[in-house]
């Protein structure tokens, strides 16, 4: 049993091969989150369930069969893993982060400085794009996913990229500046188009870009490495884009509803003054 997925060059079989490291990771996350929730019994259940969902998605993306296929055979599955981890699991985990995390982040001037940097949208766009570009280049990918340690490093950096990406809009720290409303929407829109240049390379490349996937034993006969690469690009652009646009839509609707309530809850000044004059006139008439 290997502790993490990697490209081991063996022919693909549907024999179950769990990865000990993946189970230890989710077990650790589950234990930490559960223990941390004890400090805040009023923490909303829906947020806890979101965190649980994030943990389950982490397990799906890092254990057999998805991790095996992604790390060793199919670039399209590897891209699917990246979408799951970066765009779905990490924001769920951040949304369900126990309040003790936020209190810890606010606990010292140094940590507040760090959260301030992480909350900067420009930093987040550049850092996320740069990190994902570096990790996904053939030069790095082909040299890392051939070993369990290298593949673990890639997956870990995906988690880091996810935290960097979502921090400006989903910070667990209540004191960190958070983008809301139209600014959050613009930020997420920019994040949705930042990886497009990389995806275009995969779509239009004449040859397979990644030696690992080109030279891997075929899982589906007739599905070439170039076909796989084009599908991977589609997953990154379309599926990844859909996930972000779902977030944009949900945040827009949430902001719009809150804004509408705000507008309707306040009485305009000119009506308040008119009501006051009317009340005063009525009082004089009564006397």
């Amino acid at each position, binding site marked *: 049993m290997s502790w993490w997925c990697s490209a081991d*060059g*063996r*022919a693909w079989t549907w024999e179950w091969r769990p990865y000990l490291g993946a189970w230890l990771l989710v077990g650790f996350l589950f234990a930490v989150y559960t223990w941390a929730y004890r400090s805040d019994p009023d923490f909303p259940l829906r947020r806890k369930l979101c965190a649980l969902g994030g943990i389950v998605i982490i397990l799906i993306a890092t254990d057999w069969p998805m991790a095996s296929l992604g790390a060793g055979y199919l670039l399209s599955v590897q891209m699917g893993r990246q979408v799951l981890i970066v765009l779905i699991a990490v924001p769920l985990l951040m949304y369900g982060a126990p309040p003790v995390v936020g209190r810890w982040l606010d606990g*010292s*001037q*140094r940590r*507040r*400085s*760090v959260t301030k*940097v992480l909350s900067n949208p420009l930093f987040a766009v550049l*850092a996320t794009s740069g*990190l994902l570009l*570096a*990790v996904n280049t053939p030069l*790095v990918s*082909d*040299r*890392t996913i*051939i*070993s369990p*340690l*290298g593949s*673990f*490093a890639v997956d*870990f*950096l995906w988690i*880091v990229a996810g935290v960097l990406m979502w921090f400006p809009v989903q910070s667990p720290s209540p004191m960190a500046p958070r983008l809301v409303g139209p600014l959050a929407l613009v930020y997420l829109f920019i994040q949705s188009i930042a990886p497009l240049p990389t995806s275009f390379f995969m779509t239009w490349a*004449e*040859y*397979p870009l990644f*030696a690992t996937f*080109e*030279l*891997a*034993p*075929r899982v589906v*006969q*007739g599905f*070439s*490495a*170039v076909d796989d690469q084009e599908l991977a690009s589609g997953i990154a652009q379309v599926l990844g884009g859909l996930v972000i646009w779902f977030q944009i839509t949900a945040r827009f609707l949430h902001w719009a509803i809150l804004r509408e309530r705000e507008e309707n809850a306040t009485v305009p000044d000119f009506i308040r003054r008119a009501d006051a004059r009317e009340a005063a006139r009525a009082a004089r008439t009564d006397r």
Partner: protein
Amino acid sequence: MRAERPLGRRGFLAGAGALAALTLMGCATALDDIGGSDEDNRNFQGRLLPQPVAKPDVTFTDTEGRPYDLRTATDGEMTMVLFGYTSCPDVCPIHMGALPPAIEKARLPAGDPNVVFVGVDTARDTPEKMREFLDQFDRRFVGLTATPEEIDRALAEVGFPPVVIDPEGKGGDDYSVGHPGQILVFTPDNLAHIVYPFGTREQAWAEDLPRLATIDWNLA
């Protein structure tokens, strides 16, 4: 109480970058160099043979059951030969799978090269199985077989080691076969000057085939 210095932005970024670089560098494993592209290798991405070898003087049997003399059937034509077996889990299907798209992209003026697959696992490589195996890549690929002795003689003539049946698997149907993983490329002069090991990528084939089709080895 000791006053805490706020972490500078530069320090944080430097630390994060160092961590990422160390993580990746610590896990990096250099890939084997598949083939040299230096002047000694004449900028080919395969490996030049110390001495060119002729096509084996063996009459094989094709998937239609007809005799196939490799020398006369492919005389004067570029021919690529792989000694493999249809039950091969990785080397043979990957090696063969890279050829069709590479040949298509190479667009050789003299036409597509002959691709010949010699099945060395005489027990399992029946003509039907060979045809089914090759058709998933290209119906024009030629499948050949012969007796074990003739196959070993052909391998010896081209300088390859003999076939080795996995001794642990004898008696059952699930055994592996040791065979040369290189593809021999016979240029139109009917000699193989170069071999391509397993791991040769599609782009390497597409770049080398046009040069191999027209090269004059006496002048190169």
